[in-house]
């Protein structure tokens, strides 16, 4: 929340009397504050402008820095019948967020000090200069004023405990700027009364008015879309992590000459049953468990054989010729694999090149569509396929084409290209997976060849050895089988560990899916509907109260959630309202924002400034209704009203207000008076 405690303006002049410091000093209270005078030219607006200026929000008034302020701050100040030149000027604003009090100092005219510089004293105004106080210099209106640590608006945001949402702009996403928000709270006199949010500076924020209303009354819509973004990011993370593990599994399997089946490349919710459907199989299409059992059996079988060469000479001879045959077969197969791999690699290369061309064509064609649209909006006839000379329709082509041959539109062309792109991508991927398979097969063949050759060698040496020696072949075979079993066991263990992490991911995938399902699919939560309903009913209640007359039927008034601005029969309310009713709309809307925020726990800072709300032919009784509705707000909000008491009726009604209900700051003939020697 924001509360304005005190404003102290100092204007140093060349009047030598009493030091020549003119100024204004007033304290503000909770609830209603009047800055009142009997004439209209005494500088109420200057005082209100100073508040806005100190908060660095002068873009609401219409510009940056001191340019927007009145001449009393910058050039000359009047005192009775004399005018004095302004030498230096600046203002202190003491504000509070309910817990802490700080004083903001900003110069208006001072040599050697940039008006963009803001000093924040971490104490109340009285303490400045009396004791050692902490202060910090910050800056405004430069890039980063809203986000940088030394940016004043960034400081103000955290001081006011506002968590400004990040919103879409014409460029990057930006924070919803304070200037935009406060244009719905501070209605200054010059053009604040033209329309709702008419003081809002243009900062490139998409749907800025809507975003401000959403923020002030605390709608979730933005929160929900943020939440959706977060979940989407999480989802992508799971997908990429999943893919990483899958490729690790494949790597492990490849190293052991195995393949893994029954596992999806994309994340899915996996049950235990689905887990048991994941198989690791060896190169000859057996599951790894079967393979291990088989190897164990072979191991036992060999062990039972006679260990002496002499005992199985014939057997060895037979085996050797078989092995030699197998080696020959494998070598042939290996050559075939290599040949296929070369073909596939060439195909991938060619397809990649074509894809590059298609991609470039696609990009250029997309450009062509855009350029056509740009031309059409610039009023070019050629962009709508009409000849600028004869006004006949023409084909969109610079080539000589037979007269009756139709030409594809650019959009058709793009569809055509996209089709081609899809085919090429499919082609590339299929060849790539083929290459991968071939590598696995080749690795396996190579390994088998090595073992078989070794085996053949040992058999040969066995055959030529003395008959009574121990068979080397058998020992060799046993060692071989044992290594193979160990390898398979290793693969099995590692894959199962990876599958454990896949199961974990699958669980978080499920949670993510559930969270997604929980989000309201229309992006409007029931609570938001309630908030909008309250906002609308507050707005209409206010309109009735302030005697809005332009609409015959209040039921036709609505605040649709997609714009958050009031309409009547679907049209902007302003067009159907008289000038004074337009003022009532602004009163009602500004008040309804605060009322709704209080009722529904929104983010309104709890302060409103109305400068001269009695515009046009507003009658005193309506002003009384406004004042009354302000007094009904709870104590924690603050309303500052600049008001001219130029008729007796209004004067009486304000004097009638009970003591203590409103703080009346009376300004005499002029707001800025000569300070006495103590600076008061």
């Amino acid at each position, binding site marked *: 929340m924001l509360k304005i405690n005190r404003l102290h303006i100092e204007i140093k002049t060349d009047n030598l009397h009493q030091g020549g410091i003119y100024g204004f000093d007033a304290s503000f209270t909770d609830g209603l504050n009047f800055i009142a005078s009997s004439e209209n030219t005494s500088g109420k607006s200057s005082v209100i402008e100073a508040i806005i200026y100190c908060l660095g929000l002068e873009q609401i008034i219409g510009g940056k820095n001191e340019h927007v302020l009145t001449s009393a701050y910058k050039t000359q100040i009047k005192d009775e019948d004399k005018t004095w030149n302004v030498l230096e000027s600046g203002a202190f604003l003491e504000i509070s967020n309910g817990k802490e009090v700080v004083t903001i100092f900003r110069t208006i005219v001072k040599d050697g000090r940039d008006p963009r510089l803001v000093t924040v004293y971490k104490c109340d105004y009285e303490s400045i200069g009396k004791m050692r106080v902490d202060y910090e210099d910050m800056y405004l209106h430069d890039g980063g004023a809203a986000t940088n640590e030394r940016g004043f608006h960034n400081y103000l945001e955290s001081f006011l405990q506002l968590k400004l949402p990040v919103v879409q702009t014409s460029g990057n996403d930006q924070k919803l700027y304070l200037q935009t928000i406060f244009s719905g709270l501070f209605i200054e006199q010059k053009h604040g009364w033209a329309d709702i949010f008419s003081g809002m500076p243009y900062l490139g924020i998409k749907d800025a008015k809507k975003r401000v209303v959403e923020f002030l009354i605390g709608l979730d819509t933005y929160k929900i879309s943020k939440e959706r973004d977060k979940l989407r990011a999480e989802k992508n993370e799971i997908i990429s992590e999943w893919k990483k593990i899958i490729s690790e599994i494949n790597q492990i399997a490849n190293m052991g000459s195995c393949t893994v089946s029954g596992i999806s490349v994309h994340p899915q919710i996996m049950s235990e049953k689905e887990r048991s459907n994941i198989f690791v199989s060896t190169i000859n299409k057996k599951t790894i468990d079967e393979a291990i059992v088989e190897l164990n059996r072979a191991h036992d079988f060999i062990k039972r054989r006679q260990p002496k060469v002499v005992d199985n000479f014939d057997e060895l001879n037979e085996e050797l010729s078989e092995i030699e045959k197998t080696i020959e077969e494998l070598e042939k197969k290996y050559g075939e694999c290599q040949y296929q791999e070369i073909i596939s690699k060439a195909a991938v290369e060619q397809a990649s090149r074509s894809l590059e061309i298609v991609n470039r064509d696609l990009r*250029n064609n997309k*450009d062509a569509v855009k350029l*056509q649209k740009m031309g059409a909006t610039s009023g070019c006839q050629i962009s709508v396929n009409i000849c600028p000379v004869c006004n006949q329709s023409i084909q969109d082509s*610079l080539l000589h084409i037979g007269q009756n041959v*139709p030409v*594809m539109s650019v959009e058709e*062309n793009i569809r055509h290209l996209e089709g081609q792109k899809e085919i090429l991508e499919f082609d590339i991927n299929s060849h790539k997976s083929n290459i991968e398979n071939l590598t696995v097969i080749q690795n396996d063949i190579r390994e088998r060849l090595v073992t078989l050759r070794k085996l053949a060698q040992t058999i040969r040496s066995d055959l030529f050895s003395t008959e009574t020696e121990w068979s080397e072949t058998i020992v060799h075979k046993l060692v071989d089988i044992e290594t193979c079993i160990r390898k398979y066991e290793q693969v099995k263990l590692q894959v199962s560990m990876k599958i454990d992490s896949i199961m974990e991911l699958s669980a978080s995938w499920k949670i993510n899916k559930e969270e997604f399902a929980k989000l309201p699919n229309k992006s409007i939560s029931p609570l938001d509907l309630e908030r909008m309903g309250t906002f609308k009913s507050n707005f209409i209640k206010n309109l009735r109260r302030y005697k809005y007359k332009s609409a015959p039927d209040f039921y036709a008034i609505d605040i649709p959630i997609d714009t958050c601005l009031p309409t009547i029969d679907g049209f902007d309310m302003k067009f159907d309202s008289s000038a004074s009713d337009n003022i009532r709309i602004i009163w009602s809307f500004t008040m309804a924002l605060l009322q709704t925020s209080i009722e529904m726990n929104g983010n309104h800072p709890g302060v409103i400034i109305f400068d001269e709300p009695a515009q046009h032919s507003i009658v005193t009784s309506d002003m009384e209704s406004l004042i009354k509705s302000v007094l009904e707000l709870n104590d924690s909000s603050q309303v500052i009203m600049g008001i001219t008491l130029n008729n007796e009726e209004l004067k009486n009604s304000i004097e009638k207000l009970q003591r203590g209900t409103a703080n009346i700051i009376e300004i005499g003939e002029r707001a800025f008076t000569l300070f006495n020697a103590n600076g008061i």
Partner: protein
Amino acid sequence: MINNYEVIFDAKPDAVPYNYRISYKVSQICLIIDMTSWGKTGCSPIKLHMISFALSSKEIMDKLLSFAHENAEPPLIRFDPAVNKAVSFAIADGLILQSNKGKYVLSDKGKTLVKKIKEDTQVLVAEKIDLKNLSKKLSDERIKKLSELWRSKYAEN
């Protein structure tokens, strides 16, 4: 038998390369005039052809850039009749004007179109970079000298 039936063949629509789309080429020409010529002097037809052709291929653009910057050998230029046709369309549609020296300058309408193209950061991205690199380096003087050189070299008596 077949004489009793009429067989009608409907032509399938022909695909047209982007480079031969009217609005694409016209917009490209406007962008070239805007980005590579000085103020009101405009862009000569030869220069327009050179740049427009260079934009269609990376290699030629690289050659043209080194010709413009470092006096290297000029690239071969293909004079594409499509460019002439596009220029006619652009003139007819009031996007460009022909000055009395025969050079092309942008009209106000053309300038608004170019402004739109330049503001959109997603369109003609690579082309804009190339044109910016080329910017105003390729003066008509250089092109004129080049054609004079060729003329004296290859002219037959």
